[in-house]
């Protein structure tokens, strides 16, 4: 059964076409990832699916409820961890979960149990009486995750659940999420632009400029490149790249002082490179393609271009400031 059905979904903000005729389905129990650079339209899709944004065209249903016509049914069916913080920091952790339970009409006699269980799941039981304002960014995010599942939604939306967190905390959060999938029959719909993190998804849709440009399992996406990548350090990368182009007609790319040569089979091709190099290769490595490479192949860009990543850092640090 398709728990999420989206067809020709459209949304513009004035001149900006944030989402252009996007269609996809998500099966029950799946972890579905939406991957794309800043401004691709990921959050816009999520906001439409959870009913807080009005679409311009197309259809979208969650749990067979129309996001426009049956808003309250959809709201009952989803939980969401927003990209931006949304806790009441003047309340305690317990109070945040209590009011959430009330908003979602969890039966009174079950509230206490559910709060305790979900606090356990994210390891916050010890801190439940504390005012949230004193929590670290990672703790706040975990509390948001606990809150998102307390009303036993069918679909949990996670809009960049690890944004602005340090790598170790990010790892923790994903651990909790994978646990969650294993323990409860829950569909997860997440966005991220950390490529490594998308690997836990059953299927991934890659978005760029408001369009879905690829949709498949991570394995198939990587296989679609049909390439290994040989990374070389040579005495003269530019000169060597011209040589590779002349001899094999292969376009190479430069990356952090290394030269990347996409080939169909790295193990058999590497000796050929050594043959033409005549000792100019200083080191070599064969890399299986990553989702990042898939993205580069599809769009000709990295998911976080240099200038974008500067803006990103600024944005992340602004976010972090608000979280802490």
């Amino acid at each position, binding site marked *: 059964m398709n728990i999420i059905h989206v067809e020709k979904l459209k949304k513009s903000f004035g001149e900006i076409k944030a989402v252009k005729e996007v269609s996809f389905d998500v099966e029950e129990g799946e972890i579905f990832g939406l991957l794309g650079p800043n401004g691709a339209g990921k959050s816009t899709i999520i906001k439409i699916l959870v009913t*807080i944004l009005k679409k311009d065209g197309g259809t979208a249903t969650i749990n067979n409820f129309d996001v426009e016509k049956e808003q309250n049914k959809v709201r009952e069916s989803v939980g969401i961890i*927003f990209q931006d913080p949304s806790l009441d920091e003047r309340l305690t952790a317990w109070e945040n979960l209590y009011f959430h339970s009330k908003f979602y009409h969890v039966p009174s006699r079950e509230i206490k149990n559910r709060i305790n269980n979900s606090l356990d799941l994210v390891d916050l039981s010890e801190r439940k009486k504390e005012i949230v304002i004193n929590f670290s960014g990672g703790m706040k995010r975990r509390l948001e995750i606990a809150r998102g599942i307390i009303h036993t939604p069918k679909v949990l939306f996670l809009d960049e659940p690890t944004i602005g967190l340090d790598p170790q905390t990010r790892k923790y959060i994903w651990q909790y999420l994978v646990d969650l999938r294993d323990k409860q029959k829950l569909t997860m719909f997440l966005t991220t632009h950390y490529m490594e993190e998308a690997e836990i998804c059953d299927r991934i849709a890659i978005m760029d400029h408001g369009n879905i440009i690829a949709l498949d399992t991570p394995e198939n996406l990587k296989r679609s490149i049909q390439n290994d990548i040989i990374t070389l350090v040579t005495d003269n990368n530019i000169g060597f790249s011209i040589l590779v182009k002349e001899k094999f007609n292969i376009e190479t790319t430069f990356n952090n002082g290394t030269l990347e040569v996409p080939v169909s089979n790295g193990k058999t091709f590497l000796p050929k490179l050594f043959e033409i190099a005549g000792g100019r290769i200083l080191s070599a490595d064969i890399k299986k393609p990553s989702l990042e490479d898939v993205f580069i192949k599809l769009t000709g860009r990295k998911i976080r271009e240099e200038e974008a990543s500067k803006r990103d850092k600024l944005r992340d640090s602004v976010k972090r400031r608000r979280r802490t």
Partner: protein
Amino acid sequence: MITGILDSITIAKRDIIRSFRQKSQLYGSIVRPVIWLFLLGTGLRGSFNAPEGFTYTQYIFPGMIVMNILFASIMSGTSIIWDREFGFLKEIMVAPMSRASIVFGKTLSGSIIATIQGIIVLAFFPLVGLHLSFIQIILTMLGMFIVALSITSLGIMIASKMTSFEGFGTINNFLVMPLFFLSGALYPIDRVPAWLKPLIYINPVTYSVNLLRGIVLKTETNYLTDTGVIIIFALIILSITTYIFVKDRK
């Protein structure tokens, strides 16, 4: 319907817990009316004559109650701006509650807090030489609550269209003072120039002052008109705000 009311109560409960954690607001609400009461009571005594049978301070006492409610009620709009700023409004908007109960819940909490602020002023009645019966005190509180409801709904409506505290503050300054001074809180209405009268009669605060003055000082007023105007005003504003919330999905 019942679910809707319970949802409103939940929303109100959260606001009230929050505001009791901020004590400074409460202190302000005690100090402000005391200062006004004695400043205005003594300062304006020469300019206006209270009607027969009252000192000027007694005459403006119900108006001081309304003033404190007015400030607190309009200020309660900031709770919405606050929630929007810190993201909690999204948590509320994505929950399966009717938009009307969200709006009413916000109004309810603001009204309860404003009524408490009114009661703080009311507690000074022996000091200005008034004698109130138990019934009068209960009726005053009920009156204060519907007054608070109508003005809070106005504050919430304005705030629902605002994205910044500054903008909200500016609007308030342009609104609160005229509402107060054009209400007859400080002078008998029959003594103002004719051209001002229409402004006074379209002002809901006028009816609030009349109502409370009627209960506290037993001056002559039409209770039905007063409560009717106040409640109808509140209902209209609440409906508009609910409409704004329903449409707020840009």
